[in-house]
């Protein structure tokens, strides 16, 4: 009894003098400090640095000293002969990846969820997660090994055709290779979240539906998919927001001089023009162009999904 009353006084006292409370836990600001400092340095200062996109930056003059040039770099990017191709490559690569790659983990989760025996289910999941733990470099290296003209894939193909296909140098294969390997690597792991959501579905729902004569497919559509809807919505918004920045590390590794017509995307272009060629302002402008599109896409997707089913990210 004594404890309870003390607790009550304590609470009222605290609510009474907020200032006092804040003073008591000023230590919490020390807890916040390192994160705030690091985020300020590594996230906010580059946001200021992005002003070089509107300047003619030279390392000697510094950001402050360089002259303003307005939208010159944006214009020269949009008028450059590569612009259309790079822009379309980016949209196509990530658009197709989203279109094909997004539904697969959902289907996979529904399939895995149909397995009755817990042990089998767990082992299958364990195996299909495995490629997620390989690095991008290893995945790209494996692709070069498997798809080289003397590699095993061509070894099988040449049983049926005469000429080996040189997958890695032919632009027409780039997107398929990129997307298929992405699915191979991540679909299993991405299905975890959906499997988890499905495990929360009350089995009685399924039993009841079965008694009412619902077929397996009907139950999947009306029970399982309904249960997944909120998760799908949130992940979809995130995927749309990430569309312009997708798979840059892998695209760069899979680039060969020959497949550039399909593999040059905005981010790899920023890297080459900005960092490798030292065209700082131009690179920053292209990068900014990309982030603005991402931001617009994210907000649009969020608005649309919100209208459709009330699920939102923020």
């Amino acid at each position: 009894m004594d404890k309870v009353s003390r607790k009550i006084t304590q609470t009222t006292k605290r609510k009474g003098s907020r200032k006092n409370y804040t003073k008591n836990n000023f230590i919490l600001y020390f807890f916040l400090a390192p994160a705030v400092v690091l985020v300020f340095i590594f996230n906010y200062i580059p946001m200021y640095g992005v002003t070089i996109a509107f300047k003619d930056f030279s390392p000697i003059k510094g950001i402050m000293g360089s002259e303003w040039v307005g939208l010159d770099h944006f214009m020269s990017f949009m008028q450059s002969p590569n612009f259309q191709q790079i822009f379309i490559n980016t949209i196509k690569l990530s658009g197709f990846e989203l279109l094909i790659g997004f539904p697969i983990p959902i289907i996979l989760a529904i399939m895995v969820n149909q397995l009755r025996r817990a042990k089998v289910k767990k082992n299958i999941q364990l195996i299909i997660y495995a490629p997620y733990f390989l690095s991008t470099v290893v995945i790209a290296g494996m692709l070069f090994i498997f798809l080289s003209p003397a590699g095993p894939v061509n070894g099988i193909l040449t049983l049926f055709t005469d000429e080996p296909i040189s997958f890695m140098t032919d632009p027409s294969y780039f997107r398929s290779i990129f997307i298929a390997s992405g699915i191979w690597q991540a679909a299993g792991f991405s299905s975890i979240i959906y499997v988890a959501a499905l495990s929360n579905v009350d089995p009685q729902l399924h039993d009841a539906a079965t008694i009412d004569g619902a077929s397996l497919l009907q139950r999947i559509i009306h029970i399982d998919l309904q249960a997944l809807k909120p998760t799908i919505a949130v992940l979809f918004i995130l995927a749309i927001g990430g569309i312009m920045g997708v798979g840059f590390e892998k695209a760069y590794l899979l680039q060969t001089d020959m497949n550039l017509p399909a593999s040059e995307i905005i981010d790899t272009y920023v890297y080459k023009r900005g960092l490798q060629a030292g065209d700082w302002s131009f690179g920053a402008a292209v990068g900014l162009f990309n982030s603005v599109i991402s931001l617009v896409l994210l907000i649009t997707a969020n608005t649309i999904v919100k209208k459709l089913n009330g699920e939102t990210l923020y």
Partner: protein
Amino acid sequence: MKFKNDLVNNSKTDRMLLLLNKFILILLVLIVTVPLLYVLFGSFLHPNILLTKGISFNPDDWTLDGYRRIFQDGSIMRGFLNSIIYAGGFTIVSVLFSILAGYALSVENLAGKKIFMIFFIVTMFFNGGMIPTYLLIKELGMINTPWAIILPGAVSVWNIILSRTYFKGLPNELKEAARIDGASDFKIFLKIILPLSKPIIFVLALYAFIGQWNSYFNAMIYLEDQSLYPLQLVLRDILIQNEVQPGMIADQLARAEIQRIAEMIKYSSIVISSLPLLIMYPFFQKYFEKGVMVGSLK
């Protein structure tokens, strides 16, 4: 149980579908495992055999030469050590700072909480991009130092939000009780909250470590000395750039032979570099799944 099963798969089409489902899943398991096994076997085969015969189970065709050459050269081993330092340092900074900030933001009526939240969340939607970040790192004199790998990106706003959500889920009575007993916020955090937070700490650490371990890009743009290269950058030289590390072919002169050895070394280096994670992750499966669940709470 039997009754229930009959009840659930009542129609013939349903049973066919379930069978088809199992069949496809077995196929998928094969699609995942066969390439991995191919690389594993390939790493033990004489390079000529793999090219002419493919996978061979004849012990005469087997060799450990690829592995011997990797250990002889040492660049992969040095990469391993560097990666452990980078990924370890990154994980410590990332988890420690995210958890501290997450805890502070989970405390109710912390003055200015809203401003801090906005400060963090803005960075999820907008960033300066590659070039301004690079110029900053250069300005800070971090080029060609491990700090360029460890510090930028270590504090992930996503992690702060995840840990904040976790702390908010802990029963408030615990904190209240300790406060009544006169414990300071620091003591409450250290003695009560931290011991209860092992799962979230573990999950965040796991994801941070693996993410850093498997990435190469920052290292590629910020590090110049080969002696500082993390494992993934050494692998990139071997697998993508087709560069043969001099120590691996010290004894070979013929160009064609060097080419073949280089091929074999690719297989062995994939195995050596991927094996640690592939062996360890099954033990952490529970935590990965937990991590995803925590993430979905938002």
